[in-house]
């Protein structure tokens, strides 16, 4: 992997809280304390363990793409912004304060009823991290990188996305120079949602192109 493809050099300065500094004993004590607290609240009927699992997973997978989601939501509500985004994505994202790409160009590709876009990096794991956070593990896996090109429909099916045979699939190979982001279709049932509400619907997977933003209501 060439250094130009790596993302480490472009990462933001880490904050001190990201380092673990509790000792093993402290960690063990806190594990026990939180477990007891959870049991207490479960006993009181205030929460279920399943809810907690799902909640944590949702926040872990969806917080990263927050910046990207705001870009998509803006494009959905503002046709002029959408046009700028499709013409010069790097500049359009900078308008919302999202930059951090150093030399790479962002290209946004639009899904329509007849075209579905998917992003991959066949060479390594180029990824638009300033707008999507860290890439998911599967994005970096060899099977995804090779198979999505050969059999995109099959890969999408494994992600739970079954598209009509008439929908044309376009696979975009990211590189050190160009990073792609999918503009998903705005789902029906969202006509009266605010931009902020819309942003909360957009998932990372939809912006990579392995999912759709689900129909609401």
């Amino acid at each position, binding site marked *: 992997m060439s250094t130009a493809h790596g*993302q480490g050099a472009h*990462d*933001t300065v*880490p*904050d*001190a*809280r*990201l380092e*673990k*500094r*509790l000792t093993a004993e402290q*960690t063990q*004590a*806190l*594990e*026990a*304390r*939180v*477990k*007891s*607290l*959870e049991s*207490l*609240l479960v006993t*009181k009927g*205030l*929460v279920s363990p399943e*809810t*907690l*699992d*799902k*909640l*944590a997973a*949702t*926040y*872990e997978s*969806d*917080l*990263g*793409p*927050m*910046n990207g989601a705001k870009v998509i939501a803006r494009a959905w509500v503002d046709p002029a912004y959408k046009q700028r985004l499709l013409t010069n994505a790097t500049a359009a994202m900078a308008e919302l304060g999202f930059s951090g790409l150093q030399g790479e160009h962002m290209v946004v590709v639009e899904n329509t009823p007849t075209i579905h876009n998917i992003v991959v990096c066949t060479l390594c794991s180029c990824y638009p*991290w300033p707008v*999507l*956070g*860290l890439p998911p593990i599967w994005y970096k896996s060899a099977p995804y990188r090779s198979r999505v090109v050969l059999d995109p429909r099959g890969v999408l099916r494994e992600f739970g996305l079954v598209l009509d045979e008439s929908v044309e699939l376009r696979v975009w190979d990211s590189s050190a120079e160009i990073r792609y982001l999918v503009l998903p279709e705005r789902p029906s049932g969202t006509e009266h949602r605010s931009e*902020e509400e819309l*942003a*909360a*619907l957009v*998932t990372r997977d939809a912006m990579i192109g392995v999912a759709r933003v*689900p129909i609401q209501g």
Partner: protein
Amino acid sequence: MYRAIKQDIADMGGVAVLPRQSGELVFHDPWERRVFALAVALCEQGLYTWDEFRERLIAEIAAAEQATGPDTLAAALPSYYEHWLAAFEQLLIEKGMCTPEQVTALKADLR
């Protein structure tokens, strides 16, 4: 089922800002993930507003910094999710969801 995230949680600023790396949440150990989810879950059920939780979280962080002085190394202060846990326990008591004795017992179990 798709569950939307709450934007006011994602957007917390100042000392309360969530520890994140390239946008994604950072949890060092399972208890941190668990206590994060507990506070969010009870808020989602309407037992308190996120602002109420955030105010207590900020107060916990401020109190810890005041107790030790501004020159204390960050490493000597409680970690983010220890503050989070303390704020959550405080809120449970204030909202009458737990008694102070129940919360104290949780801590006492450790020894």
